[in-house]
């Protein structure tokens, strides 16, 4: 071993060759261009905006109760006055002044171009939204009002044998069938030495072949409906079917001026307190 030279710094020795990195000439060789454009894509159909033919809107029934504790019913037999009773007793919750139909958050849409309807959560789709004055304020689709009395009523024994029938309230109980929702009438009579409010359903009259508010002769008595309505009373369901409720779909962009009105054409029960109301485009 050349001990002396190996351990002597003064001997000439080459320096480190150093680190020689490999070439990167072939790592990235192109400029990056990202093109999102169609060379050949053919547009086979236009995405034309069309409005649905039919709508179904889920509503919830909210009854409006009576709050008239001061209204009384009194029966008179000649000069005898029977003790008055409250016209609208708070226990009788099935008698309501009106029913609010509140939007329950779901719609079904059927477009002209499709056979099936689709469900929409919310009150709009594709830029179209329900737009009624009452709806915008409180999600109220329609308030279905019944005829009722705003003043105390009296009943008299009539030698002319006339029976006065008053429009009393609407009938509604949560869970009742839709066909049961209807106008209720009443007569003021006597029972057990007390004035008595005798109620009758519209259906009962219809089953007898009577169509309030038209007056009728019943054997030797004359039935007189004291109502301001000139049109025959129809049930809640028939009212719906006759287009009682109307709504409109409008674009959120007011400049687009896109609006379509719909009228009700049917109603389907959906649980004890809800129903789908079907609407059709109105012309």
């Amino acid at each position, binding site marked *: 071993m050349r001990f002396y030279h190996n351990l002597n*710094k003064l001997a000439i020795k080459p320096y480190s060759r150093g680190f020689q990195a490999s070439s990167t000439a072939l790592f990235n060789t192109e400029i990056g261009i990202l093109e999102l454009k169609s060379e050949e894509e053919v547009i086979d159909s236009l995405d034309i905006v069309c409005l649905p033919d039919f709508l179904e809107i889920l509503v919830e029934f909210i009854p409006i109760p009576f709050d008239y504790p001061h209204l009384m019913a009194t029966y008179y037999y000649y000069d005898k006055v029977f003790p008055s009773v409250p016209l609208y007793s708070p226990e009788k919750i099935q008698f309501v002044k009106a029913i609010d139909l509140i939007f329950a958050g779901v719609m079904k849409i059927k477009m002209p171009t499709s056979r099936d309807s689709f469900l929409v959560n919310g009150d709009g789709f594709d830029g179209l939204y329900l737009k009624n004055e009452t709806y915008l304020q409180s999600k109220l689709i329609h308030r279905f009002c019944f005829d009722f009395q705003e003043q105390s009523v009296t009943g008299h024994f009539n030698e002319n044998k006339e029976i006065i029938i008053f429009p009393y309230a609407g009938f509604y109980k949560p869970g009742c069938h839709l066909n049961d929702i209807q106008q209720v009438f009443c007569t003021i009579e006597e029972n057990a030495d007390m004035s008595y409010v005798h109620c009758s359903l519209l259906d009962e009259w219809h089953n007898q072949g009577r169509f309030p508010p038209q007056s009728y002769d019943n054997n030797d008595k004359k039935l007189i409906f004291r109502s301001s309505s000139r049109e025959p009373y129809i049930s809640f369901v028939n009212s719906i079917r006759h287009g009682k409720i109307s709504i409109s779909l409008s674009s959120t962009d007011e400049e687009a001026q896109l609006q379509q009105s719909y009228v009700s054409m049917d109603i389907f029960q959906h649980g004890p307190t809800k129903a789908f109301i079907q609407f059709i485009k109105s012309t």
Partner: protein
Amino acid sequence: MRFFLKWVDSGEEVCIGKIVKSDLDILDFTLSQREGGIALCSLTIPLSSILKKDSYAFLIAKHNEKMTPLFYGKLMGVPLHVSDLQQKIELFAVPKDYRSQLEKIKKEAHQTAEWDELFVDVEKREDPTEILESRPELFCWNPVTHQVTLSNFFVGRVNRTFNESQILQNSLKIKIGQLPKPYINLSVVAEWVQEAEGEINLFPFIEKKFSGGKINTLTPKSLLIQWPRKGQLLGRSGYAIVESHLQPFNPPMTGSLGIYPHFTDQIELLDENAGAIRLRQTWLNGKLKLGWCYKQKRREIVKLKLNHRHQMLSRSEANKLDLTLRLSDLSKHLPTPATPSFFETERGKQAIGHALKIASCHLAPSSRTYEITIKVPITEALGITLDETITIYHPALTKGSAKGKLVSYKLHASFEKSWAQLTIAMAAGEDGEVKIDGFNLVAEAELEGLPLPETLANSDFIDALSLRNDAFSQSQIIKQKAPRNKDELRQILQDNQTEIIFTLRDIRSKDVLERQFVVDTPLFWSAPKQV
């Protein structure tokens, strides 16, 4: 004065003071050592002397009843010279444990500021001599104890003085040993591969281009089909899609503001029966993230000049020195793999400082311009080593004295005479040692390629972004072209589909990007002033 040679068997402990007889008759001997080397002892002995092959032996001097070991070494197998009556043998002061001693010195040196592994190839980092490159020191081998130490070029640990009366007459000789190098042109070269990668979210940039701040179009199908897929590469550009999806969505209601219209204005088709229609305006939401990957070989060269300040003025060595130092693998020394410049980092500047130390060590030997040789009685040099500073007082010297480092000695004794010849090297530096403090690094060109990624925003990766035919533009075109019927309307949309084109930052790599620096600070180094 008497001299003894005592053989030492393996494991034997020798008591120098109790030696009374020499194992060999010594006719004469010469003991010599030069700096950086081990001591050699050649002895002339009778031919009949019995030698212990491969054995170690002490050479001891007895003077004034005091036994002083001069040398301890191993016998070389074959005599140097054989004559009728005599033979000349040689012993070398080879430490048995030199490897472990050097290993220890090496390990200690690696912990100091004078060691920088960047300047040493990986396979040579365990070589003890590598630690000397940046130190003005040499290994010093004690001829008796075999201890290895580091001894400075200019100053020893022990001081010894000789005055005129100790110096043999007419033995003082002064000469210029070598002329100092005037300067060193130093180049430090570093090579590495810059590696960087990252992600860019392109989607917000696309959205900003559209009216309403969201993607909207009358031709969504083509955009949905053309939208890039995750994993798609953009050729060999270094870009790839890492996250991507696009889908229609219902934008929020803005009422009368109409920021996000769902359909166009009414389009009146000219044909009587065609009527008026509105087209649905599709709003799209999604994600588009691009990953990028960059590799670039870089080479940086720092050029500087280390000037040598010395007293020789115009007398300098003609051969200048150009020194190129190439650094080893930098990967562990870069702040991050994406670092685009090494010498502009603190570690890089530290490497330049180390290179200057290496350069100064090249200037150092040449700065020991003067050599003085003296002869003194051998008794004056007993126990001498090379880690000594010698001061000489003699009227022949300028100012009557000189001081320098002992660089070699020779002790000779025979029947007729005995002496010690000492050679002392003296540095002709100026005003004490000049240290290098700080320097100004100037790049000769701007940085090419990718800078540090942390300094780049997403927008820095987008050279150009063009959008053609968003929904508003398409509506305008339809209005302008006034189609007669749905077929013509369809064709207009066919010809004016929404297009988005990105041109991304150029991250193409080259074979190598080389960058040169100069140090414009004047740099000087000087040895101690010993003359």
